[in-house]
């Protein structure tokens, strides 16, 4: 007998195998009861692996989106700490040859922020910006970015960074002296001395518009402001300067 015939015969035996009578009678009802305990199948039913992957992707997208959105924020804005944190992480994770470049970029951003908030004239933002500036320079100083560098190609970066940090010493906390150093004296909180303006001019872009007075202050406050605060004027080149 051929093997296929034997298999055919065996198939007939195979097909006689049936579940118990009880299973045949009640199998479906038992299944329906169990199905009833489950929810209707949903189109977005994830398997565990897919769920983990989807969650990880979602978290990654949110994180990247938040960091990206934070890049245009200014001091005192909600996402500004995210920007600062992302920069800190970037400068630490970057290869040694890129650290100086990133650090220089960080300082540059702090200066731009300082210039922007100064032109907007919000005292709180200016204070916050100066604090952040100091924190950034302190942090970069701690990193000792030029330690152990011997390569000539990085010498330029090192010198450049050292010069930038030196030029900022003392850091601009002293620029808005009364407001930072004597915070308890509220009357002088929003004033900027003429000396600080001169110092600011050396650090910030040459054209600084006049800061607007704070709206929250009362009428009496406006009188005080007239006495104590100094207006920052846009510097126009004069004939003598040109000479």
């Amino acid at each position, binding site marked *: 007998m051929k093997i296929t015939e034997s298999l055919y015969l065996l198939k007939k*035996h195979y097909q006689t*195998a*049936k579940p118990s009578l009880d299973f045949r009678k009640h199998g479906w009802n038992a299944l329906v009861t169990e199905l009833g305990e489950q929810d209707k*199948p949903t189109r977005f039913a994830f398997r565990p692996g897919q769920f983990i992957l989807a969650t990880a992707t979602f978290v990654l997208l949110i994180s990247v989106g938040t960091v990206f959105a934070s890049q245009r924020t200014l001091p005192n804005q909600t996402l500004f700490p995210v920007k600062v944190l992302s920069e800190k992480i970037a400068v630490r994770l970057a290869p040694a040859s890129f650290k100086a470049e990133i650090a220089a970029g960080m300082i540059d951003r702090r200066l731009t922020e300082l210039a922007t908030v100064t032109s907007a004239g919000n005292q709180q933002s200016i204070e916050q910006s100066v604090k952040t500036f100091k924190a950034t320079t302190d942090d970069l100083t701690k990193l000792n970015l030029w330690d152990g560098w011997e390569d000539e190609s990085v010498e330029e970066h090192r010198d450049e960074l050292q010069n930038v940090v030196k030029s900022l010493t003392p850091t601009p906390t002293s620029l808005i002296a009364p407001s930072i150093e004597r915070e308890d004296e509220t009357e002088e909180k929003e004033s900027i001395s003429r000396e600080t303006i001169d110092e600011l001019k050396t650090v910030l872009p040459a054209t600084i518009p006049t800061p607007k007075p704070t709206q929250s202050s009362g009428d009496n406050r406006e009188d005080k402001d007239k006495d104590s605060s100094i207006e920052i004027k846009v510097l126009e080149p004069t004939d003598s300067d040109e000479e």
Partner: protein
Amino acid sequence: MQKELPDLAVLVKLSQRGDKEAYGKIYRFYVERIYRFVYYLIGNQPVAEDITQVTFLRLWKNLPSLSTHKGTFQAYAYTTARNLVIDWQRKKKDVSLDAAAQLEEADTNTDSLIIQEEAKQLHHVLASLPSEDRQLVSLRYFEELSYSDIAKIIGKNEGSIRVKLHRILAMLKNKLKGKI
């Protein structure tokens, strides 16, 4: 080939929307096939019934991710049953020959004693095969599934399934020659 369930695609679609009556039709059509397949592999009636029930529960749960394309549901049903059998065998670690014994007892009136004896020998030889080889024989010669469906169930390509089955048949022939 075994007859297909008419409008299977429509029934699967309705089931995907939560229609239990439609799923009931699918269940009634496939339940004995799945049971036989499972029972042949493990040879234990209560366990085979349990595995069959769990197979249909899992199918219901995973219906949304199923395509309604012809043949997909059938292949998926056997795959689910097969995976459950593999899990059970891993836990159990031994494959019973009860199925062979029970199959031998059945249907004794229709065939001559000589043919019965040959079938019995073949069944013993089959029972000694590795689990995957028995799955292949069962799916191809007992369930009469297409090579493409078997390939989907086992997770190999169609060509290798054909070659494997050819080898299994040749081996069965040799073993039977030695026995009979």
